[in-house]
C-alpha cells in the first residue's frame, strides 16, 4: 500500500539547495532539546522495569494521546501522503481517511481490554489464558517482524532527509540518526521516548498548520478558488525557457494533443493555449531502485521485462539512479509512454546485464505546437500542461488504471483500518497510562490530533500539485538532472510558499518525525525481546533486579545496529515494500488473534500460534509474489496490497487451528480474563492508581484483596 510513499526519499538524491545553515541550526536544536529530555528522563527510567518499559504508567491520558499521535504520524504520513496527493490527486487522500478511522477500532475494541490485561507487550494479552511460551514466541516473532520492517523504512527515509539537507553522506546520515535514536531509548527508556514523541507531534502539527495557512493565503483564503485549482493541475513544466512570440515550446509531460495547455502559474502571468500538435520522439527519464554499476552510453539498448528494447537517450553515469530512454512511439502522449513500460508495477530492467527495477519515470521534453504565440517570456521549469483534474477519483486506483484497481483500493482500506490496531509500537503506548480510563482518553486525544493533521494533508498535497506543480516535486542530482521525488512535496511546497527558513523548518520536522518514530519502534522491539523472549521464555519468568533493563539496552544496540546496517545495505526502493509489509502483517497476523483472544471463549494456544504465523506467512508470501516482489510485472498476485486476502487468511488460520487442539485450560480462564478485561480488577496500575486510585474521580480503584500483580 505505501509503495509509492517511500520509494523516492529512499532514492536519496540531493536537492538544489546548498547545505543550509538554518537547517543545521534547526536539526541541532531538536537533537539538543531531545537529548536534554533524555538526560532528565534517564534519572527516572532506570529505577524499575515499569519505569523503563512503561514510563511508570504515570503518563496522563492527554499526554499519551499526543505521544500516540507522534508515534503514528511517521514519514509515510507527513512526506508520503503529501507526495502521493501531489502526484496522484484524490486517491492519495484515501490514506489519510483510513489512517484516522482505524483509531475507532483501537478505541472501541482493543485499547481498554489490552490495558487491563497486559503489562508491557501485546503478547501479555494472549499469554493470559494460553500456554505462555509458544504464544509469546509467536507474538514476539510477529512483533519483531512488523517493527523491523517498519523501522528500516524509516531509517532509509531519515538518511535521505538528512543527506538532502545537511549534505552529509547517506551512510553517515543513517548512522547519526541511529545513534541519536539509540541514546533516547538506551538512556531514557519509555519516559524519554514518550516526551520525544510529544515534542515531535507538537512540532509537526504547528508546522502543518503554518504550511496550510500559507497555502490558503496563496488563494486569498478562498476555498472555492482552491478547489477550482485542484481541477486544473498542470502536471508538466517547461523544459527550456520560452520567449514571447514562440509558437512551439518544450514541455516535460502532461500535454494532450488538441486539448488546452496552460502555461505559467495561476494569476496574471498565466496563459491558455490549444495544443495543436504534440511532437517528438521524446526520451523519458526513469528513476531506478538501485545505482548503476557502470556507465551506460547513449545508444545502448536496455531490455524491459517483456523483452522489449529501449534505446538509451543520453549517457547514464555509474552510481546514479536515473536513465533516459528513447521512446518508440511516434507521438508520445503523457502517461501513455510511462504506461508502456508498466511503471506502476515496477518492471525489472536489464541494463547491460544488471537487473534493476524501474520505480518511477516521466517523459521529458515533448515539443508542443501552440495555436497562437506566447505573449511573454517564461523561465525554464515554469509549470505547464493540459489542465488535469486532480480531484477526480481513481487516478491511481480504478479499474481503468489497473486491472483490479477498485479491489486494490478496498484491499488498501482493509489494511489501513485493521492494521493500526495490530501495530505493536502503538499498542505498547497504552501501558504507559495509569488505567483503562486514561487509555481511552488518550485514544480520543490522538484521534483529534491525527484527524486534524490528516485533513490538512489536503492543503499540503493539492497545494504542492497546484502551486509547485507535480513536475517540480523533486530534486536535482549532482549531474544537474531533475529527479522526481514525490516525498519532497511538503519541503518543496514550504520553500515555495514560506521561503528558505520555513523550508529548513519543515525539513527539520520531517527529520524529527522519523527520529521519534524510530525511537518508538526500537523501544517496542526491546520490550518485546526483554519481556517476552528473555524473561518469560528463557528465564521462565524468574527475574533478577535490573536484568531485564540490561537485556533491553543490549537489545536496543543490536536492533539499532541492525537497522543502521540494513538501511546502509539497501538504500533503494525496498523501503516501500517494507512499510507495506509492516501494515499488512500487523493486520493479518496480530489483529485476528487479539480479537479472538478477547472475544472468543473457545480460542486456544494452537489457534493463537496458528493465527499469528498463518497471517504472517500469508501477508509475506502475497507481497513476495506481487509486482512489488522480485517477480515484477509478471507476478501472479496482481494487487499492490495483500490485505483483502491475507487478513481473512489470518482470521481463518486462527479459526481452523483452534480446532486442532482440545486444550481446555484456555477456555476455563476465559471468564476470569473477560472479567479483568472489562473491569480492570487485578490490572497493572500506575502511579496513583494502586493506593490513591479510589480517591481519584473517574478512575477505577484496585481492590485491595484481589492481588494485583505487583509492580517491580
Amino acid at each position, binding site marked *: 500500500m505505501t509503495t509509492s510513499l517511500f520509494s523516492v526519499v529512499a532514492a536519496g538524491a540531493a536537492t538544489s539547495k546548498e547545505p543550509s545553515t538554518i537547517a543545521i541550526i534547526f536539526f541541532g536544536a531538536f537533537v539538543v532539546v531531545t537529548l536534554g529530555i533524555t538526560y532528565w528522563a534517564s534519572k527516572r527510567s532506570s529505577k524499575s522495569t515499569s519505569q523503563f518499559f512503561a514510563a511508570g504508567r504515570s503518563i496522563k491520558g492527554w499526554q499519551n494521546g499526543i505521544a500516540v499521535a507522534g508515534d503514528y504520524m511517521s514519514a509515510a504520513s507527513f512526506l508520503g501522503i503529501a507526495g502521493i496527493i501531489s502526484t496522484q490527486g*484524490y486517491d492519495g*487522500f484515501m490514506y*489519510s481517511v*483510513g489512517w*484516522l478511522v482505524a483509531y*475507532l477500532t483501537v478505541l*472501541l*475494541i482493543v485499547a481498554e481490554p489490552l490495558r487491563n490485561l*497486559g*503489562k508491557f507487550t501485546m503478547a501479555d494479552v494472549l*499469554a*493470559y489464558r494460553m500456554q505462555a511460551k509458544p504464544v509469546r514466541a509467536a507474538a514476539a516473532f510477529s512483533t519483531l517482524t512488523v517493527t523491523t520492517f517498519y523501522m528500516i523504512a524509516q531509517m532509509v527515509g531519515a538518511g535521505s532527509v538528512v543527506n538532502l539537507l545537511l549534505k552529509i553522506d547517506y551512510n553517515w546520515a543513517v548512522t547519526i540518526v541511529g545513534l541519536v535514536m539509540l541514546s533516547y531509548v538506551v538512556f531514557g527508556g519509555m519516559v524519554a521516548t514518550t516526551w520525544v514523541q510529544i515534542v515531535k507531534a507538537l512540532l509537526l502539527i504547528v508546522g502543518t498548520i503554518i504550511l496550510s495557512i500559507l497555502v490558503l493565503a496563496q488563494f486569498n483564503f478562498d476555498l*472555492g478558488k482552491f*478547489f477550482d*485549482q*485542484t*481541477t486544473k493541475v498542470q502536471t508538466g513544466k517547461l523544459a527550456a525557457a520560452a520567449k514571447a512570440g514562440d509558437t512551439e515550446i518544450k514541455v516535460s509531460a502532461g500535454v494532450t494533443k488538441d486539448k488546452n495547455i496552460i502555461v505559467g502559474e495561476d494569476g496574471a502571468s498565466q496563459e491558455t493555449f490549444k495544443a495543436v500538435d504534440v511532437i517528438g520522439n521524446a526520451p523519458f527519464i526513469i528513476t531506478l531502485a538501485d545505482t548503476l554499476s557502470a556507465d551506460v552510453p547513449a545508444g545502448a539498448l536496455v531490455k524491459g521485462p517483456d523483452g522489449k528494447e529501449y534505446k538509451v537517450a543520453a549517457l547514464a553515469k555509474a552510481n546514479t539512479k536515473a536513465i533516459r530512454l528513447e521512446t518508440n512511439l511516434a507521438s508520445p502522449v503523457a502517461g501513455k509512454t510511462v504506461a508502456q513500460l508498466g511503471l506502476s508495477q515496477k518492471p525489472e530492467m536489464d541494463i547491460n546485464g544488471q537487473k534493476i527495477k524501474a520505480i518511477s519515470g516521466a517523459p521529458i521534453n515533448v515539443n508542443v505546437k501552440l495555436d497562437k504565440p506566447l505573449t511573454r517570456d517564461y523561465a525554464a521549469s515554469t509549470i505547464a500542461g493540459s489542465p488535469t*483534474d486532480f*480531484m*477526480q*477519483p*481513481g487516478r491511481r*486506483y*480504478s*479499474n*481503468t488504471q489497473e486491472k483490479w*484497481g*477498485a479491489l486494490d*483500493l*478496498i484491499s488498501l*482500506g482493509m489494511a489501513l*483500518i485493521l492494521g493500526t490496531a495490530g501495530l505493536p509500537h502503538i499498542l505498547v503506548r497504552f501501558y504507559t497510562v495509569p488505567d483503562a*480510563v486514561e487509555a*481511552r482518553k488518550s485514544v*480520543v486525544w490522538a*484521534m*483529534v490530533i491525527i484527524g486534524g493533521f*490528516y485533513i490538512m494533508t489536503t492543503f499540503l498535497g493539492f497545494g504542492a500539485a497546484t502551486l509547485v506543480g507535480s513536475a517540480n516535486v523533486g530534486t536535482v542530482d549532482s549531474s544537474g538532472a531533475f529527479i522526481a521525488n514525490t516525498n519532497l512535496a511538503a519541503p518543496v511546497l514550504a520553500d515555495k510558499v514560506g521561503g528558505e527558513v520555513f523550508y529548513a523548518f519543515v525539513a527539520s520536522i520531517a527529520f524529527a518525525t522519523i527520529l521519534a518514530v524510530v525511537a518508538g519502534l526500537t523501544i517496542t522491539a526491546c520490550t518485546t525481546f526483554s519481556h517476552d523472549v528473555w524473561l*518469560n521464555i528463557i528465564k521462565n519468568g524468574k*527475574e533478577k533486579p535490573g536484568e531485564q533493563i540490561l537485556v533491553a539496552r543490549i537489545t536496543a544496540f543490536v536492533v539499532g545496529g541492525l537497522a543502521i546496517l540494513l538501511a546502509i545495505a539497501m538504500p533503494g526502493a525496498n523501503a516501500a515494500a517494507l512499510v507495506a509489509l509492516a501494515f499488512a502483517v500487523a493486520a493479518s497476523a496480530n489483529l485476528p488473534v487479539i480479537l479472538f483472544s478477547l472475544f472468543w471463549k473457545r480460542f486456544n494456544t494452537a489457534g493463537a500460534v496458528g493465527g499469528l504465523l498463518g497471517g504472517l506467512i500469508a501477508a509475506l508470501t502475497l507481497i513476495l509474489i506481487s509486482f512489488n516482489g522480485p517477480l515484477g510485472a509478471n507476478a501472479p498476485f496482481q494487487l499492490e496490497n495483500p490485505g483483502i486476502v491475507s487478513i481473512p487468511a489470518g482470521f481463518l488460520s486462527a479459526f481452523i487451528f483452534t480446532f486442532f487442539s482440545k486444550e481446555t485450560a484456555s477456555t*476455563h*480462564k476465559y*471468564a*476470569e480474563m473477560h*472479567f479483568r478485561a472489562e*473491569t*480492570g*480488577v*487485578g490490572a497493572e496500575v500506575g502511579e496513583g492508581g494502586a493506593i490513591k486510585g479510589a480517591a481519584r474521580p*473517574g478512575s*477505577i*480503584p*484496585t*481492590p*485491595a*484483596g*484481589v*492481588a494485583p*500483580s*505487583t509492580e517491580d
Partner: protein
Amino acid sequence: MADTLKPSRGSTLATGGLTAEELEKEHQLEAIESGPEFRALESSKLKFLLPATIFFMIYYFALPVLVGFFGTNTDGTPGFMDTRLFSGFSVAYLFALSQFFMAWILAFIYLLAFAPKIDQMVRNIVEKVVNRNTEIADRERGGR
C-alpha cells in the same frame, strides 16, 4: 511476570491447597464474575459497541467501494461519486471528509455519553469485590 503472579482460579480450584479464606474469596469472586451486575455490564457494552462497530465499518468501507466502482466509469467519464458540488469539491471528497467527522463524533459519543455510564457500573462491581474481600479478611482476623 504476569504469567507467574496472577491468580489462576481455574486450576487452583481443582488442585485444592487453598486456605479457607482464599477458597471462599474464589467462590465469591466467581459469583460476582457471573453475577447479574457483570452480566448487565456485558450486555450494555455489547448493545453499544456492536452496532457502533458495524456502523463505522460499513460507513468506512462504503468509501473505497463507492470510489473504486463509481468514481470513474469504465469509459473514463466521471462516475456518480465524481459529481461536483461547488467548484472542484466533489461528492467523493465530501464523503471522505465526512469520515473524519463520523470518527470524531462516534469517539466523543463513546467517551462522553456512553463510557461514564459503563465506568459507574464497573465501579459498583469493583466495590463489591473489595467489600467481600474486606469482609472475609475481617472475619478471618476475628476468628484468630
